[in-house]
């Protein structure tokens, strides 16, 4: 009984091996392009609600440009997906991303191409472009580049039900005192002033960005960053006190059980007229209408102070367009970007998704629900979302959630300061662009 000097491979290994090889061959053949003269662009698209809109746009583009194919990659979990693509050094050719703090970090790391020299840049409303620039740009060439073009903007304000306002004889408030008085009137008449949805922590964010953004001193975040981890001269506790007390006051008018209601329940409730006002922005309008297509909706900016002229609208770039820095097809990618930023395409998307057009000479959005916020956008009286300035590693919305549920703004401010200083201490080196 002699063991063989080399093993006889069991018979079933061969078919399994063949299967593996066949599958490998199959998967690799799928990667090669069909024809060598057609350029294929990899289009990273982050917004699930807009997949069909972009599919239509891509179709239109491909009809006009037969030599270019665009493959829309509607990505699950875009934050993780973009990071893994970066790790793999497979930055897409054209991307859409939500222009927020994460975008700012990526831009500072010089992931995106510089679009400064492109003519399409001049068609953009400067105030909107400024919001994009404020988040961060690549500084490799010595001056600030333009790393993203805004494609669709949103606006954060207060949504209200015009029918309920009329039924209770309440006018749209232009000062803080009027807002509180309106809330009191509604309460006295048995109507919930606000429908709050604190099961979803992020819904405490809109009030934060509006109140905090308007009341924060100029250059607050730059000073905060310059301080490092010792918050001596500026801090949230010192400079956000009034804003947070106002937020707590607003949320004291919430309906019962607001801590267990979530965003979906809120959209449905507001659509059915459960409250007079709703602390959400333009992006909630499609969701509200999905519950009731005829829901009466109006909007107005937060009257943060008692001076009606202080009012601004917080606006963010919901969809920004970028080009990968080292894309192998810069010319085709630019063609696609130019197409995307053309007035017809932008306006088509704006109408479909209830957003604002970022183009300078665009016709104002005619949706009556947005009529209260529209003039501010066209005039450029907008500020960015300040929560984009707070690093994502700080659980901002969770802390906000605690604050509005407990009503304790001091603990919130202290916790926020403490988290900020911890992160500042951890960021041993500032990330510089290459």
């Amino acid at each position, binding site marked *: 009984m002699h*063991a063989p000097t080399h093993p006889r491979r069991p018979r079933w290994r061969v078919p399994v091996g063949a299967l593996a090889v066949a599958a490998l061959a199959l998967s690799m053949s799928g990667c090669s392009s069909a024809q060598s003269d057609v350029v294929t662009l990899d289009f990273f698209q982050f917004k699930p609600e807009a997949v069909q809109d972009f599919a239509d746009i891509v179709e239109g583009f491909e009809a006009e440009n037969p030599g270019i194919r665009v493959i829309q990659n509607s990505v699950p979990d875009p934050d993780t997906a973009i990071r893994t693509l970066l790790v793999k050094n497979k930055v897409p050719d054209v991307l859409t991303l939500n222009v927020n703090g994460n975008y700012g970090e990526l831009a500072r790391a010089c992931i995106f191409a510089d679009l400064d020299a492109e003519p399409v840049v001049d068609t953009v409303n400067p105030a909107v472009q400024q919001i994009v620039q404020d988040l961060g740009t690549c500084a490799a060439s010595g001056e600030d580049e333009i790393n993203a073009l805004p494609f669709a903007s949103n606006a954060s304000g207060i949504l209200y039900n015009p029918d309920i306002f009329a039924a209770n004889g309440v006018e749209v408030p232009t000062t803080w005192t009027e807002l509180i008085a309106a809330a009191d009137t509604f309460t006295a008449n048995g109507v919930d002033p606000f429908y709050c949805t604190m*099961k979803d*922590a992020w819904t405490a964010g809109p009030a934060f960005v509006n109140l905090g953004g308007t009341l924060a001193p100029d250059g607050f975040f730059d000073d905060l960053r310059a301080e490092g981890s010792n918050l001596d001269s500026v801090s949230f506790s010192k400079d956000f006190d009034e804003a947070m007390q106002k937020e707590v006051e607003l949320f004291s008018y919430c309906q019962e059980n607001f801590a267990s209601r979530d965003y979906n329940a809120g959209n449905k409730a507001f659509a059915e007229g459960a409250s007079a006002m709703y602390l959400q922005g333009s992006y909630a309008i499609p969701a509200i209408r999905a519950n009731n297509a005829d829901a009466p909706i109006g909007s107005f900016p937060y009257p943060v102070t008692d001076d009606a002229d202080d009012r601004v609208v917080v606006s963010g770039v919901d969809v920004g367009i970028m080009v990968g820095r080292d894309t192998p097809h810069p010319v085709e990618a630019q063609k696609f970007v130019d197409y995307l930023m053309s007035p017809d395409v932008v306006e088509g998307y704006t109408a479909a998704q209830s957003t604002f057009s970022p183009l300078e000479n665009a016709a104002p959005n005619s949706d009556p629900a947005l009529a209260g916020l529209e003039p501010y956008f066209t005039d450029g009286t907008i500020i960015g979302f300040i929560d984009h300035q707070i690093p994502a590693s700080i659980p901002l919305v969770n802390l906000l959630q605690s604050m509005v549920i407990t009503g304790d703004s001091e603990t919130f401010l202290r916790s926020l300061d403490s988290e900020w200083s911890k992160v500042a201490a951890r960021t041993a080196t500032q990330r510089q662009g290459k």
Partner: protein
Amino acid sequence: MTTTADRATTPVGTTPPPTTPPRAKSRFSRTPRTFYWMVVPALVIFFGLHTVPVISGMFFSLTNYAGYGTWDLVGLSNYVNLFQDSRVLSSYAFTFGFAIVSTILVNVIALAIALGLNARIKFKTAFRGVFFIPYILAILIIGYVFNYLFANSFPAIFTSLGFDGLSGNILADPNFAWIGIVIVTVWQAAAFNVILYLAGLQTIPGELYEAAGIDGASSWRQFRSITFPLIGAYFTINMVLSFKSFLQVFDQIVALTNGGPGTSTESIAMVIYRGGFQGGEYGYQMANAVVYLIVIILVSFIQLRFLQRREASI
């Protein structure tokens, strides 16, 4: 007649007695080369696809890498910062408490159900299929359904029964949200453990029970003297593995509370993933992950020792 489960207790943590009697050793001494061939390819691939990444991840814990762009070595400062971070420390406290409670509950419930499914009941196959369903349900479904049940259905039921104290959404209460998460986690995890326990129970020959029945032993006595000792190995495995996997809870937290209300239900895995990948603090959270790894190994080792000693004493 051989009993199959005892041998399972031997490998881990104790010096295993030789599985072959000495006289057979010489017969096998000429075949080891084949055995080497059986394991070496797996070893090489495993090393490449698992160990190398682990070492790599551990290396990054000594840097300030954000997941992209440039990075520098920062030595042990990530670890120093870690122990001063109250958010991280409270996530450890929460996760441990959660894991202990869930492990005990899951194993008791899964064993009970497996016993039931193994007994002489009607529609056995159908019931086995039913109890498997939670395991294959997508987490989004479970999250939505239970969020809805906790927010609407349960409060309504309890209020109508007169328990006004339970009329709120348990997931919105910072002190008790973890109980809601435990309920859902146990509900889903019991399915997996039922399979393992069923496999274990089915290794116990039916003749043992018959013999015991003839002898007049009650069901509880049979469980205590036959079932429990013989599935001791499975029990140990299940306890250690379920504790390990509950320490890594992530999906259920995200689906049910997202770490809220406030930061009261943040688990370690959630803090690592959120802070490391979406928060851009990859290097720092890798330090967290390394500490996490050490903690898991230590705890599992202690648990294994304790349970095996208890097994041996039965």
